[in-house]
């Protein structure tokens, strides 16, 4: 009854059970680490300029340009099952017609604990524009710094690291100098 086929089958079954049990244990171990680091976020300047949009039906469109400063030490989030962090800065505001918007204007992938202490003074990496043509009559925007922890194996988690204290109003569009 102990054919070679049966032996191979048994060994394979045992090995795969062990591997999946180990992977499950590693995935569960992530829940033991409950670090929730906070940082600070401030908006330096915010300007709106008209521009040309290549993709949209409205060819003339207003674009916002944001200068921001981020300080956050996210290194406590790195443990043995952290593959990388995806950190992103979003703007939340409501348009003139009531549309609620959340737009990511900057992001960064952090792969090592040594790089996780963020001290960034930057400007938006992605186009920041409204669904409508203009930023006229939109509500002031809150800016948030959020992150997504991505494991080697297991569940993806999301959290917020910083938020501006006050909402920042959009200025009127100015002509390009």
């Amino acid at each position, binding site marked *: 009854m102990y054919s070679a086929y049966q032996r191979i089958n048994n060994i394979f079954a045992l090995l795969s059970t062990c591997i999946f049990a180990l*992977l499950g244990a590693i995935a569960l171990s992530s829940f033991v680490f409950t670090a929730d680091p906070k940082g600070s976020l401030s908006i330096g300047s915010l300007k709106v300029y008209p521009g040309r949009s290549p993709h949209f039906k409205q060819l003339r469109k207003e674009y916002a340009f944001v200068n921001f400063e981020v300080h956050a030490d996210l290194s406590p989030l790195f443990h043995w099952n952290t593959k990388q962090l*995806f950190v*992103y800065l979003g703007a939340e505001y409501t348009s003139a017609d009531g549309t609620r918007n959340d737009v990511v204007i900057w992001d960064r992938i952090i792969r090592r604990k040594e790089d996780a202490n963020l001290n960034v003074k930057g400007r938006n990496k*992605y186009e920041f524009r409204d669904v409508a043509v203009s930023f006229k009559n939109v509500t002031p925007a809150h800016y948030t710094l959020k992150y*997504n922890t991505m494991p080697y194996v297991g569940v993806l988690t999301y959290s917020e690291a910083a938020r501006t204290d006050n909402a920042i109003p959009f200025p009127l569009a100015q002509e390009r100098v």
Partner: protein
Amino acid sequence: MDSIKAFKRLGVRYMLLQALNFAAVIASGLMIWKGLGLVCNTESPIVVVLSGSMEPAFYRGDLLFLTNPASEQYVTGDITVYKVPGADIPIVHRVIETHDVVSEGYVAASPLGQKQLLLTKGDNNNANDIELYQGLDWLEKRHIVGKVRGFMPYIGYVTIAMNDFPQLKYALLGGLGLLALVQRE
């Protein structure tokens, strides 16, 4: 000649029983898959990453677990799998813009009735996905297959290997079928 003799020795009844067993295994697999899809509210609760546009988070062959709860809106940072009409392969990319449009007939108490415009981008791509939307300006809820909740590396590479080398698939299927018929418990 030898193998035919072996078949004869096993008998028709036994062969039929084995065929039935084989069918039961396939049917229960299908049931589990569809049941999981029902619970997760998505047509494919487990997908294999096919492109490198989300590197270094997801590589080709990694396995993703999806859910698509009907009671939740999408938020920025969510990694979604979407399929736009006209494109054959589903794409795994991250949501970078959400716009919850106030539409006519919208009831404040039901966020589900609300139309949502989404823009996505692959972490490893420089530009957003507008070029991939086949003429659409925005992605909408109906295009989205699910939201990535869990991750397991490499396991899905088997299916990629089988797609790239079809001989492997036929060899595996044939081998399994033969074993199921011939093998005696």
